[in-house]
Structures are given as structure tokens and as C-alpha cells.
């Protein structure tokens, strides 16, 4: 992690919590394979399993950010490899729209990430998780679940 960035925004001990939505056939299996291969990676993700990345409702992502996630990682099968033919393409479309929307709300790009990780790519999973954790750690906590201190005044002023 870049020390300079940490000093700017977050306490040194900050450990981000990342909600990960993994599809049952590729990325969830890659995570299992990382386990059977004893590949070590950052312990910051909390995986929610769905059958297909196409099942990921944008509201799930918003829910995660609203309830305290510092980052959301989506893992699906590579383009062309979806177990359900094309669910990952639907996921990709939603991801781009949602990312644009979250951007306008001030969310940094590194907090919301989509990765194609096949069932055989345990190493890629490790790299993606570690990289994302490092970047989000550098950004500091999101705290969307904490109401703004002066919310009432801000609303009144507007």
C-alpha cells in the first residue's frame, strides 16, 4: 500500500470490507480452488454467492454500499464462457450503467469492480482481491452507512 495515500485519508489500521458477488460456476469455484490450492489472499472480502453474474441486481450493489461496504467486487465467467450463455453480458451492461451512476454520486472507481475469473483462475482471483483491497484501503472508509453529521442543516439549506 502506498504510505503517502494512507497518511492523507485513513487511519493506518483501516481494513476495508468488500462485498463480493461471485457467480456459482466460475468465480465462486475459482475461490474454492484458491482454497484447495492454499493460495493466500487478503481476508477482506465477504462472498455472496449467486448462480450467475446476471442475477446481480444493481440494488444489491447499492444496498451493500448503503449498509457499510467499502467496496463491491463482482466476479463472473469470461465473456463467451457464461454457464448460462450470456448472463455475464447482462451483468457487464448493468455494471457500466451503475458505475457511471455511482461516479456521479462521488464514488471512486476503484470501489466498484468487475472481474472475469474462470473456475481455473485461482491466482487471478488472488491478484484481483489483493489489488482491490490495496486500492480501497488507500482510499479509506466509504461510510455511506453513517448519516452525515449535519444532514438536517444541509437539507434545510438546500
Amino acid at each position, binding site marked *: 500500500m502506498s504510505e503517502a495515500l494512507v497518511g492523507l485519508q485513513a487511519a493506518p489500521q483501516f*481494513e476495508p*470490507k468488500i*462485498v463480493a458477488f461471485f457467480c456459482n*460456476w*466460475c468465480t465462486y*469455484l475459482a*475461490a*474454492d480452488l*484458491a*482454497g*484447495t490450492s*492454499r*493460495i*493466500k*489472499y487478503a*481476508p*477482506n472480502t*465477504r*462472498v*455472496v*454467492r*449467486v*448462480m*450467475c453474474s*446476471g*442475477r*446481480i*441486481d*444493481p*440494488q*444489491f450493489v447499492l*444496498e*451493500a454500499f448503503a*449498509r*457499510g*461496504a467499502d467496496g463491491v467486487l463482482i466476479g463472473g465467467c469470461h465473456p*463467451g*464462457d457464461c*454457464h*448460462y*450463455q*450470456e*448472463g455475464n453480458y*447482462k451483468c457487464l451492461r*448493468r455494471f457500466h450503467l451503475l458505475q457511471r451512476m455511482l461516479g456521479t454520486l462521488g464514488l471512486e472507481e476503484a470501489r466498484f469492480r468487475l472481474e472475469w475469473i*474462470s*473456475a*481455473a*483462475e485461482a491466482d487471478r482471483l488472488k491478484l484481483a482481491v489483493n489489488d482491490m483491497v490495496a486500492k480501497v484501503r488507500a482510499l479509506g472508509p466509504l461510510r455511506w*452507512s453513517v448519516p452525515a453529521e449535519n444532514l438536517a442543516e444541509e437539507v434545510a439549506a438546500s
Partner: protein
Amino acid sequence: MAEKQISGDVRIGVYVCHCGTNIAGIIDVKEVAEYAATLPGVVVSREYKYMCSDPGQELIKQDIRDHNLTRIVVAACSPTLHEATFRKATERGGLNPYYFQMVNVREQDSWVHVDKRAATDKALDLVRAAVRRVPKHRPLERREVAIHPDVLVVGGGIAGIHAALTLANAGKKVYLVERQPTIGGHMAQFDKTFPTLDCAACILTPKMTAVKAHPNITLWTLAEVAQIDGYVGNFTVRVRHKPRFVIEGLCVGCMECIEACVFKQAKVPDEFNAGLSKRKPVYLSFPQAVPLVPVIDPETCIEFKTGKCKKTCIEVCGERNAIDLNMKERLEEIQVGTIILATGFKTFDPHRLPYYGYGTYPNVYTALEVERLVNASGPTGGEIVLRDGKKPKTVGIVHCIGSRDENTNRWCSRVCCMYSLKLAHLIKEKTEAEIYNFYIDMRTPGKTFEEFYNRIGEEGVKFVRGKVADVYPADSDGQLILRVEDTLLSRVRKIPVDMVVLAVGLEGQPDAQDVRRMFNITCSNEGWFLERHPKLAPVNTFTDGIFLAGCCQGPKDIPDSVAQAGAAASEALALIDRGSIELEPNTAYIVEEECSGCKTCIPLCPYTAITFNADTKKAFINEVLCKGCGTCVASCPSGTIRQNLFEDEEIVEEIQGVLAYV
């Protein structure tokens, strides 16, 4: 333990598995269980050494009765491993099996983290998520589908042959599809097999003819799977038949057409002999080919190229009329319930390692070429001679070509040490040449393999431990020099030989990625198909009803290929004989009264499971066609489409649960 009564009648039992020390060594299981006991709705919370054991499962069953539990959460390994086990235990306790939720704290927690505190915290979050999720679970019915009794076997090497025969002998109808003009695969090219030195053809050819003769086997050579639809029990497969230009049913196998071909001299490199001999455009791969029917190669046949051939082949075939040069490629559709993939391997191409001089120096051979040279029915009638016809007096066999090498393939190909020993024996027996084996490590872990290694050593074959750096010509007499660091003598040696044999490794088929895409299975980046579990489900894939046999799953020798083929056949048999299979009830459904009829979902379904009812102006999901991806569920603007096992409420509870949001 204080009993708490919340959220209606939900009474949750939480079980944290130690898995010996696999989980408990990193995660503080006691803390997790104690924490779970404090969560709303949890009535019983325990940790136990092995939850999947009989006493572990019994614990769940007993607690359901004693404490009137209505939901079960087990924190243990991956659901792919034991979800079914615990669902059954839940059911045996008298609950609907889908009142169960599994928490993966082994593969995705204790095995991948080193920080005990962080791993335990992760387990706490995941258990909390499951405890919050289960109250939303609804009782579901199992989905059962019938299994079509016919089987498709793809690939006609020894693995495919053995699987097909096993199934056919059990009375099942088998389609065996092979892309070459004959079945037999790589094994048909070998002379003898290690370590017993039985003749490969003597073992293989009876099985090949048995395939042809078996009433339950439909054998299609020069055929490929073109397309596949459906799911376990009900696959629709389209097979592409490439034209042989000789009608199998009419040909009697007299081979007169080959004799009569206007090519008096064979001119085309013979694939079966690894290019060491020539064949004509009309040819038979080898004398024991099955089916024993020649094939015409349109790429080299004069009639196909110019249209001006005298067609002596048709003339000589005469009344039998077995040759049809107008034969066209055609597609055929079949229905099967299960599929066995036995698509095999390819050998490493040593052109990729130019410093060994393959393709540059004529006396550098691949092991497969030497197999053909040694073989009595090979291009030299079993005589081991160099390209200039002379017998080699010294031979160097170089191990690990394209194996155990960061620049090519990292894996050990498993068979090369043993086949190198075998070739050393056979070459020595036939030529009395001086033979060197250059090895990194000798790997002989198999029944009587080590004894075989000792025997070859006693026969006087020399072993040099070291990886050959390069091969270059000696100044005179056409010899080649192998430069190698002898790591036992700690010095560089230059050993002149007449013949170099490259012990090429095994690789996945070049089109493995296309094949796995078509069959919807998983393939490693290296090109080997992925088994569902290396120990518990070694021949299953992640797609139900599709099994693996032989080298398409990874390098292996003939005994292992045959054993795996038998296992794949019996897995298929188990499905067929049970007659039906249970599918996950994770289908989507529509709450009709809330559907606005906007049709957003309809084009999203790749299985056309959603239709629009013009009368009611509502969407309708055909449960039989739905495969349960949930893409439509995420798209429905009014939240009217829902998915069993993955309801919005369930997932939202899980999200809030992992984030400790109460």
C-alpha cells in the same frame, strides 16, 4: 443455553465444523459458535470436529427433534462439497431440505488466510449473514428430470473405447464419435506398453473390433460434435459427419482401390506413422483400422483437385459401388442423457525448443516417431534405422521435453520417464546400441514401475542426471553432440550420439477451449478439462451428466486412462439406472398479479423460457426450460420475477448480514 424466541417460529441451529484442524487451526471455532448463539433466532449453536461424519449429521437430526429447530446453518467446507450431505441430514430431521444454509469457512476462509483474527472475523460475518438469511427460506419441492438412457462418448482412444464397451456391455446404447478415420487413438501407434511390455496392438485391437461388432454401439468415425443443447438427462447433440467418400456399408475392405490409385507411388506424409512414411490419397490408417474401410483425402486426391482423374479406384471397386466421390458433409441429430468426454491429448511440438535441433538435424526424433520405428507394422517394419538407413550405435534419450519447464509447460507429463525406459529397452534389444537417458528426476511411481527402472539399468542403459542444454552436429561422421551438465559428476559433458530421441510431454488438445465451451464445462488454462473434485468426484464435471475419461483431464498412462474410463462409465450408469436426477429448484417464477406486462424480461432469457400471454397481458415462465440463472429476476422493474433459493430478500439479508448492519 438460553432460548430466544424471535421472528415468529424461526428456531435456528448453527453448527461450526472444525474439519480436524483444517478450519479450527485458523478460525476460533469456539468463538464463532458462541457468537452465533447470541444472534436473534439461534436456539442451538455448536462446534464439532467433523460435521460431515455420521455423528455430526446425527447431531443435526437430534437437535431438530429436541429443540424444535426450523432452520439449519452449517459453517464448514464449500457447498459444492457437502451442501447435499447437510440438506439430507436436515431432511432426515424432518425439515424441508431447503431450510438449510451452508457457510463456506474452509475453502474461502481458513485455507486462504493466515491471520487468525481476520479469518475468525470473516467467519463471524459469514455466519451472521447465513443466520439472517435462513428465516427467509421457503420450503421448496425437488425438481426431478428423467434420464435418457443413451450415452454419447466423444473420442475413440483407449479411454473412449473402454467407456463405450463398459456401457454397451451393461445394455446401454452408446454413440461413439471419433474425428479420425479410425478409432484407436495414440495407443494404436505404440509398439509395446510399459512396464509389462505387452504389445499394444494385441491389447487394443480386440477391443476395437469389439466396439465395431457390439450391437449396442453406434460407431461414427470422421465425425465431430457440432452442437449441443439441453441439460443432464436430455441432451440434443448434432453430430457432423465428414465425408469418407467410401460407403462403409458397401465396402468389403479388400483395399483394391488403394492398389489401383493412379498414384503409383505414395506421396503424402502418413499421419499415423508420424510422417515417417508416405501414403496415397486413398488410404487405410493402419492394417487393423476400425472400421476397416479406406478413406479418400480430398486435399490430395487428383479428382478433387483437377476433376480429371481416370478414377481407377471406382473402376476397380466395380459392382460393389462403394466409392462415392459426391459424398457431402451432413449433420445428424441424436438424443442422449449422459456424455463422456475422452478427447485425449496431443504431444508437445519440439519445434518450440530449437536448441534441440528437431527439424534441423534429421537424426533428432520425437518419441512418437521412434514408437513407429520400433513397431513391426511401422514404416521400417520394426527396424530401427536412421534416415540414411544405418543402424544407430549410440542413442541419447532426452527426458522432459516440454515438461517441467517454465518456458513451455510446468507440469510433469507422467508418462515420459516410463516410455523412455521402455524405448531404451526396445532400442537396445533390437540394435544393441549404447543408450543414454538424460533425466532431471526419474519418476517411476506406479505398480512395478520402479522394478522396471532397475531392470533397464541392469540391462546396461546409461543414466545421466541433467537437463540437456543443446544438440549440435559433431565435426565429422554425422554424429550429434548432446551437451549436458551431469549434476552427479558436477561437470559439463559432451556426449556424441547417432540418434537423439526427444521424450516429448503431453499437452491438452489444441481445441480444448472450444470443446469445453460447447459442452459448458471448465478447462484449465493449460488445456486440461477440470474435474468437479480431484478426490471425491474425479470423473465428474461441474455440468451434471458430463463425465471425463483419459488424458483430456490431465496426463496419465494407459492403466489410469482405462480405470478412469470405467469410473466415468459407472457414473453414467448410476444416473441411467436410477432413471432420474434431482435438479436444484433454483428456477425463476412470476408473481402474476404484480406483473405489469412490460416484457423487459422476455428477450433476456437465453432459453426462451419466458413467454408473453396475450390474454392476461402477463409474462409466463416455463419451469422446465428455466435453468435458474436469475438474469430475468434482476431485470424485472417491478420485482415481480423471483428466484427460488436466491430470493431478493434472502440475498439482501446476506448483504446486510456480512456488513453487520442490524
